[in-house]
């Protein structure tokens, strides 16, 4: 077993899928000779040629829709957005064309749109966004936000094999900060299944992507106070794993929903509603949201830190819940 970064895990997953299935190809801005802004497809063009590693004009609408068009012929395109901040440029195509295709006219769209998401790197308001929620609210899509290298690889492979348009958000803060040993043999991770990142019994933190590690740090601090935190890493945001959410609530009876996305209209609301529906009687305290503030993502480090949810915020919330 080799130690592999989150970034390399995604690269391996894509490469393996392209080796396995010639119908898989990648397209996007600067994905060819340059290998992509974050080097996810570095070297791919030398192996798969410019036919299957397609550099595009700066045209997110065209990337999303041409990928879709190719998928109508049975290809399995993987489109890259240089930053997931630019997914908004193709928003209309994603929600109107792609998401409705199978429902409207029975035309499946086996395709992936992927790219770097999230903050914490002083990217400023246009290179740090968490834009997943608009798509969680769009029936017909699948939305994946992995937190670990293992999941990133297994889920990108599942995304490529899925017969629906899958949006794959890669947290850029994790790209080179997260490493772990990965199995030598091939594996996939199923879409739609959450993962218990840490077992605990007093408070559940339901979260995903980079804030899994915020929760983890908080859990380590809280453990010293005897508060055992369970961390549920959602991994897939659409479809959500309702069973896993119910199970952790039934176990701990106290819930923090933690996300880097902004609060109002963020996925914490959806999870609150699901908990109400699935496990209301198990709740011993109100569900607490720990999220970014309701503004754009600031550039300057002191501002960005104040904006994003911090370990202390989780610690405080957990103490409050346990004392409720």
């Amino acid at each position, binding site marked *: 077993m080799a130690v592999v970064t989150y970034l390399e895990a995604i690269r391996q997953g894509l490469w393996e899928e392209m080796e396995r299935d010639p119908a898989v190809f990648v397209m996007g801005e600067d994905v060819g000779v340059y290998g992509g802004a*974050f080097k996810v497809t570095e070297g791919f063009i030398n192996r798969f040629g410019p036919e299957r590693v397609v550099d595009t004009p700066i045209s997110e*609408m065209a990337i999303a829709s041409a990928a879709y068009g190719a998928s109508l012929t049975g290809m399995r395109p993987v489109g890259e957005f240089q930053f997931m901040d630019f997914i908004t440029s193709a928003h209309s195509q994603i929600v109107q064309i792609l998401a409705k295709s*199978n429902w409207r006219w029975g*035309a499946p769209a086996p395709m992936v749109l992927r790219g770097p998401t999230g903050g914490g790197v002083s990217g400023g308001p246009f290179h740090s966004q968490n834009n997943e929620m608009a798509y969680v609210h769009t029936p017909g899509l699948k939305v994946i936000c992995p937190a670990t290298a293992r999941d990133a690889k297994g889920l990108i492979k599942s995304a490529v094999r899925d017969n629906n348009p899958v949006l794959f958000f890669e947290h850029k803060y994790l790209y080179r900060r997260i490493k772990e040993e990965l199995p030598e043999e091939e594996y996939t991770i199923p879409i739609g299944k959450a993962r218990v990142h840490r077992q605990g019994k007093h408070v559940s933190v339901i979260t995903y992507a980079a804030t899994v590690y915020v929760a983890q740090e908080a859990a380590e601090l809280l453990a010293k106070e005897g508060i055992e935190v369970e961390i549920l890493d959602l991994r897939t945001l659409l479809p959500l794993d309702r069973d896993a959410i119910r199970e952790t609530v039934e176990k701990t009876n106290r819930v923090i929903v933690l996300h880097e996305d902004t609060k109002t209209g963020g996925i914490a609301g959806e999870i609150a509603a699901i908990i109400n529906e699935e496990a209301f009687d198990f709740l011993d305290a109100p569900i607490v949201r720990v999220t970014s503030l309701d503004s754009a993502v600031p550039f300057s480090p002191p501002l960005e830190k104040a904006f994003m949810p911090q370990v202390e915020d989780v610690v405080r919330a957990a103490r409050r819940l346990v004392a409720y």
Partner: protein
Amino acid sequence: MSTKSLTAPEKNAAAPIGVSPHGIPDWRLEQIPFHIESEWVNGEFGYKIVGETDTPVPPLRPSKYLDKEKSIEIYRLMLVNRRMEESLERMYKQSKVIGGLYLSLGQEACSVASAFALGKDDWLGPMIRNQGSMIVKGFQPRDTMMQYMGKAGSPTRGRESGSHYGDHRVHNVIAPISHLGDSISVLAGCCLGARLQGRNIAALGYIGDGGQSTGPTYEGFNFAAVKKLGVILLVEHNQWAYSTPVEMQFACKDLADRALGYGVPGVILDGTDANQVYDATYEAVQRAYAGEGASFIEAKLMRMKGHAMHDPANYVPAAVKEYWKRRDPILRYENYLKAQGWINDDELKAISDGVNTWMDAERDFAEASPMPDPADAATDVYKEDGPIALKYGPVVVHEANQRAQLKESSAPGHYK
């Protein structure tokens, strides 16, 4: 980049080859002798004509490629297009149509003759009015009728209305979406997918004088142009976008001027002349098959009805309608076929009767068919697991370096 242009016909042409001010071939035998300006009249703001409207109607321009049989078939299909819409109009007035009804009166030549130039494996990206093109591509009038009535048996099982349907398996028709211009990149993608499977195909996309203003149109067609994909953008310049005259939609004279900026061959033609429409599309299709890439066709014609049935189009000056009424594509084609000595009145009547009988049967079938089961409202939002076949055969493996290995990424990339 190929410099080969869409050519004008060398033989049979009824008039000399024209060229637009920016050097684009203009196949028309007449220019539209008027334009629209706005004015105040007694405190009301509206549109007026500047120029003449009573110029004589030229003959059609004989086709370079269509023989007698194909010409007659195009005629028949135009008639199908019109009769189907006449049926729909009656059904609308009988309140059998649900929601809005969009008609293409005056545009039948543009829909039918262009789609007729496509091969079986080529794709079509219709707009709402291209109901005739969908028949050419293999759908039945009942399909459109059932769509408008929201019937269970319609191609979208009642989920969508009108020409918002398609088929990716056999007919190769993209189900239009309302957001104008969005199909163009999709067609480019179809061509890209086919090329990866070793096939240069053509994909014909329509867009209106209004719809071509959208960003998706631009991104999609630029993408097709730079990737040399066989997208044929047929701009149906029918003078109006809903109530908006073209004078308020763009500042260039001919929309084909935009072909220069896309870097693809362009041509201007008379969209009421099925021969011009067919020939231009045919040449563009051949370019696509030869791997020479995208083409741009501007067809000038007129939307003879309102935007949809609820719209009486009072904003259109009456003389404009009269001018174009004299340029009815079907009547002119009938005269052309007769002048060619290809058809007589009896044969015309037989075609007409055949179309009428068929249309009545289609309407009866559509009307009698059931409404959908409410339980079907929100099914099939997702496609289940399982293999999806490649449409054009196996993916071609190119000269790329088969032995290259995945190496660890070198540089830190954009942000550390």
